[in-house]
């Protein structure tokens, strides 16, 4: 039986909090290399996140939304995608985007205020969506277009628990149900929409159960158990691509997890939640859990973990150096890519700004 065919109240788990396989669970059939890749990407996402928060504190980066705690859900779900599949993120999926090919320096650059960080070249990754839930209909639209063109690529769309309160959640899932689009809706239910708890977003017992209303399968998974997430996401992607007779393509996945830190670096979570709650969830940390499992299987040992630590630190340090090494965007870039062809008025405004910069030095112009 597919792992998707279950009561949406029943949470899919493979690893318990100590990294032991729970009774009756099936461990995903991944190679040793893939297991290590999953672990390494999660470690990388964690370290990247810690460094990004620190860069913000040092004034080297703008407001940044941290992801710590959510590495398992992000990395494992993105690993379920093929290169031709689409990843439609909210603003917190730095780890998922990395797995799907976005460079760390690209993410850093964007949060350092340089729009060119969103240059995604040939990747099938949408730029960060800040208005909540607004990316959900885009993912459905990508699926509608894929069907129109007869392509078999799939979209995964990430959003938080708060997004499920928005009209676009309903509209995006409703369209997906009606047109049977190849879309995986992946809710990173991290318990808090800034300061508002999940219980104040919805009276539904689970978010997964909302799928019933759209005529699609809904599945709840332990979002801090990367193996369970991988299993669910892989099956959902596969079903979207090649549904069996009578199966519908779209799936709503609710990955139950927690953000360890603040909503963004501008937020202070101590105002709205208790330390005990954070500690309880930290005991479910996806990284030591996967590490324990891999050590028990003989895939990881102290030496290998140390090598991974070193390589992760090097990669992040090098990305920061690269990101900070880019020349700041010139003011002209503001006028680029607004339209395919620049309207005359915009050209005039660009010329005006150029003239201003010739007549005043930048220090004078930038003093506010």
């Amino acid at each position, binding site marked *: 039986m597919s792992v998707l065919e279950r009561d949406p109240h029943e949470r899919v788990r493979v690893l318990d909090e100590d990294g032991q396989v729970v009774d009756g669970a099936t461990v995903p059939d991944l190679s040793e290399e893939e297991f290590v890749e999953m672990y390494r990407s999660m470690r990388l996402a964690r370290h990247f996140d810690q460094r990004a928060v620190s860069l913000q504190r040092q004034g080297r980066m703008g407001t940044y939304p941290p992801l710590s705690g959510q590495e398992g859900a992000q990395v494992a779900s993105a690993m379920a995608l093929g290169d031709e599949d689409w990843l439609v993120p909210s603003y917190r999926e730095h780890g998922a985007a990395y797995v799907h090919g976005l460079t760390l320096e690209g993410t850093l650059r964007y949060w350092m205020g340089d*729009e*060119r960080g*969103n*240059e*995604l*070249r040939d990747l099938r990754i*949408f*730029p*960060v*969506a*800040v*208005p909540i839930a*607004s990316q*959900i*209909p*885009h*993912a*459905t*639209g*990508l*699926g*509608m*277009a*894929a069907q*129109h*063109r007869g392509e078999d690529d799939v979209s995964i769309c990430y959003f938080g628990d708060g997004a499920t309160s928005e*009209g*676009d959640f*309903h*509209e*995006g899932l*409703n*369209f997906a149900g*009606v047109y049977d689009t190849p879309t995986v809706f992946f809710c990173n239910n991290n318990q808090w929409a800034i300061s508002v708890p999940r219980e104040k977003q919805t009276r539904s017992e689970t978010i997964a159960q909302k799928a019933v209303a759209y005529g699609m399968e809904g599945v709840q998974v332990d979002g801090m158990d990367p193996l369970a997430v991988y299993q669910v996401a892989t099956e959902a992607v596969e079903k979207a691509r090649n549904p069996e007779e009578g199966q519908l393509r779209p799936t709503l996945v609710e990955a139950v997890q927690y953000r360890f830190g603040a909503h963004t670096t501008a937020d202070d979570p101590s105002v709205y939640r208790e330390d005990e709650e954070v500690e309880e969830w930290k005991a479910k940390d996806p990284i030591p859990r996967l590490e324990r499992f891999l050590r028990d299987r003989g895939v990881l040992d102290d030496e290998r973990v140390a090598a991974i630590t070193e390589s992760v630190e090097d990669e992040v340090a090098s990305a920061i150096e690269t990101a900070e090494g880019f020349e700041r965007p010139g003011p002209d870039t503001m006028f*680029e*890519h*607004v*339209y*395919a062809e620049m*309207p*005359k*008025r*915009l050209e005039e405004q660009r010329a005006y700004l150029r003239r201003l910069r010739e007549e005043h030095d930048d220090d004078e112009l930038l003093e506010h």
Partner: protein
Amino acid sequence: MSSQNLTLVQAVRDGLKGELERDDDVVVFGEDVGKNGGVFRATQGLYDEFGEDRVFDTPLAESGIVGTAVGMAAYGMKPVPEIQFSGFAYPAFDQIVSHAARLRTRSRGRFTVPMTLRMPYGGGIRAPEHHSESKEAFYTHEAGLKVVVPSTPRDTKGLLAASIRDPDPVVFMEPKLIYRAFREEVPDETYTVELGEAAVRREGTDVSVFTWGAMTRPTLEAAENLDGEVDVEVVDLRTLSPMDWDTITESFEKTGRAVVVHEAPKTGGLGAEIAATIQEEALLYQEAPVKRVTGFDTPFPLYALEDYYMPEAARIEDGIRETVEF
């Protein structure tokens, strides 16, 4: 060259048909646009002709319609979604301004939104509340969007084709008051009318009147009524973003006087933008203050009062006289 004598709404249909035929990536969708052919019949027969893959009904959900169109456009298609009445576009406003308008900038050109969002707009047809507003200024205020308002059947077909082929998102606002008000010969083959170019509908030397959409006809009527007294130039702007400032200032430099006629409320309307630009760019030609003849700063009234709300020829004539006699 064969042609047909069409109304404006028939020209919409003819324009859609031509683009559906020439490009498989064009899809038309929205509420009731399929079997029903649209509540104004703008898509009549297209479902039968092109099938459900190309012309389809959607759930009743404006944000969903525009949001999925953004995704389809980013994939490389040319969606032509319809919002049934512009007064219902607000649930989709976030998708229009936050995503359709910005995706090109945000992805540095990697993803674009070649979408043409059609919406009937404006008053004068005795419609219920929320069916008569003129909110073109909302969309012209947003960088990244183009805004088109046709006023004749021939322009409608050509501007619609140009919008659909345009690589940027276009908000195509159809003045429903003149959907069936008159007919014009429209060529059978497809053609484009370039976006961003105004049309001088009547040449004159005393005063320039700038207008668009349904207001073009009462403006021309006012100009005719004043014939012999005032020599009025009438400029139909056709594309509101990007605006054809060259034609506007050129006309103003010739006449030294300007009246802007729009049915949208006065405050924050495009009349203010045109007046300000004339001040900035052609002040030394100015013989009189720029006059605005517009709707009022009230919610669009229910239909018992809509004729008072909307500028008509007499009001426009008064505005022109005041400007000339200043």
